[in-house]
């Protein structure tokens, strides 16, 4: 499959001090939905804006659709649809007028009506942008990217702050675009979004890729990809080591009075856990088991949660 976006040894240092991106390599295939997953301040936006040609990298090479920004900026602009984080479009223009404006910048745009329909904005076509809900505004932002009839869609945190229904609507829009053989690069700090939407993703922390692969691969890589979460009633049993010695436990994490055990085989660990609780004359107040998620991958890799500031 041909490569749509490629970068090597990408670095970006602000004011000679703050290293936002520290040596990043990416290769994104045509037709793929690729996610950059990471906490706030990890360097996701800096990375995507360098790939979009909006920021100059301090060093490193970028190639988009086989072209470089230094030599083919105009051509590339025609091929990319971009939705930035937090753009506030003119509030006193209508949805249709906004799309007409953006469509006028491209040589061969998609028709405004087609985009309005695809993003279910038809009913709001003649409303002022200022009167739209958060979800509708976000869909309009994506619409201004799709109006370009782009080959690559860049979405920087497209669903941040949206309600679950609006998020799902946006996911459908992205999948629709992918079905037309479009390439998508998105950033997010929601792991469920990354898990469901992305074919492949890179987890970014402190300006570097710390893991890369399909969501399934990344979870697979965890030794022990089941999580047993429980809480016990007795203070004296809140010693993590006790639980780490149970059969099949890979690691123990304790937070907010809960223990999280990463285990290989829940059916081996849970009976032993129950026996241990009984032996301590305590009882369980909470017990769940689940598949490990990207969140657990992230915690294992960094010792922190994705959403922590």
């Amino acid at each position, binding site marked *: 499959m041909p490569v749509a976006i490629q970068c090597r040894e990408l670095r970006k240092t602000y004011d000679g001090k703050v290293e936002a991106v520290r040596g990043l390599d990416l290769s994104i295939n045509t037709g793929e939905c690729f996610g950059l997953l990471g906490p706030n301040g990890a360097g996701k936006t800096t990375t995507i804006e360098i790939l979009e040609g909006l920021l100059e990298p301090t060093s490193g090479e970028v190639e988009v659709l086989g072209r470089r920004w230094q030599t083919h900026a105009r051509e590339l602009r*025609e091929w990319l649809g971009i939705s930035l984080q937090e753009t506030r479009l003119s509030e006193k223009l209508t949805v249709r007028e906004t799309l*007409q404006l953006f469509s*006028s910048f491209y040589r*061969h745009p998609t028709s405004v009506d087609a985009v309005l329909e695809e993003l279910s904005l038809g009913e709001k076509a003649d409303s002022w942008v200022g009167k739209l809900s958060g979800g509708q505004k976000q869909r309009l932002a994506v619409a201004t990217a799709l109006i370009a009839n782009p080959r690559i869609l860049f979405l920087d945190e497209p669903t941040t702050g949206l309600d679950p229904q609006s998020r799902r609507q946006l996911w459908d829009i992205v999948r629709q675009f992918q079905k037309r053989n479009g390439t998508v690069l998105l950033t997010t700090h929601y792991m469920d979004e990354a898990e*469901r939407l992305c*074919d492949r993703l890179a987890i970014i922390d402190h300006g570097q890729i710390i893991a890369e692969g399909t969501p399934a691969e990344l979870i697979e890589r965890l030794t022990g990809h089941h999580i047993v979460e429980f809480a016990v009633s007795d203070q004296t049993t809140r010693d993590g080591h006790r639980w780490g010695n149970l059969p099949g436990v890979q690691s123990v994490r304790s937070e907010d009075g809960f223990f999280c055990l990463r285990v290989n085989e829940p059916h081996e660990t849970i009976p032993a856990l129950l026996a241990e609780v009984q032996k301590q004359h305590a009882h369980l107040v909470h017990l769940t088991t689940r598949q490990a998620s990207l969140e657990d991958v992230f915690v294992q890799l960094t010792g922190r949660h994705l959403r922590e500031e």
Partner: protein
Amino acid sequence: MATLEQPPVIEAPQAVISNGRWIGYVRLLQMRMLELWREPEVIFWVFVFPLLLALGLGIAFRGKPADVTPIAVVAGAKASDVIQLLQGLPEHAGIHADVLGPAAALDGFRLGKYALVVSMDETGVHYRYDPARPESVLARTQVDDALQSAAGRKQAIQTASTASSEPGARYIDFLIPGLLGMNLMNSGMWGIGFALVEMRQRKLLKRFVATPMRRSDFLLALVSSRLVLMLLEVALLLVFGVLVFDVRVEGGLLAILLIGALGAVSFGGIGLLTASRAQKIESVSGLINLVMMPMWIFSGVFFSYERFPKMFLPAIRALPLTALNDALRAIILQGEPLHSQLGRIAVLVVWGGISFVLALRWFRWS
């Protein structure tokens, strides 16, 4: 979401549109005008406010058939003699005298109610006047003349005078071109400077440069929107002046519009420079006011800058608003041809040109 099966390739929603070279510019201009039209504040500040100002000042300083100068006569034995002497002569209908106690007369004089205090006793007439107040100096001369000739002074030469309040020489005539110039400055600075920083703060500029939009089209559309507004501003103020205050427009309309356009573009350039790097609307607001403040005071909007000391005049004349106001007055009031204004045109071109060049060098899109 791993690709278990190849997704069917669906054609993009009909990509049949082909845009011409100038469609981007046309849309940018169209949307800018729509936005302005939908912003009630813009309509008020650009169109209504200058008219209100002209109306208010025009009424306050309207030409009267003859000015009546109020003076105070200090009550005393001779007060009635003064009144009699003043009333004895026909040309002194222009003086209105009140007889008051010395303290009340002085108070009235201090507060500006009276232009002059006259007291008369056995030694003669005593005037109290303020040399800094033109109407006070005038009243002193008038009253003195009246008293002297009533007392029997012979006129060396017979004179006659006509009070002039012809259109063309009144305060409102002076004011309208000044307001026009000030309005072009205000809307150029705010309409371009403020608007740009606002778009930068909203990340709209960044969003625009993420498209193939030509940056020159964007700036051109912004300047064009100023020119369209300029046409309306000029037309509105002139028509208002003509209809309400009988202002006579002596110069050619084309010359007025050309100077107006030059002023609008020049201040657009200064607005662009002011906005070239500011990230927040708060900081650009301060900058805009800082740039405009000296011109409000020195450039002869409300009163002639000739009142400032002579040594300042060359600097004042080098300000763009002074050049614009002077050129507008020369053309509107005196009917001067455009080519007589080359010096002032040069001042506007230099200010605008240097601003544009620097602004384009420093301009930040994000």
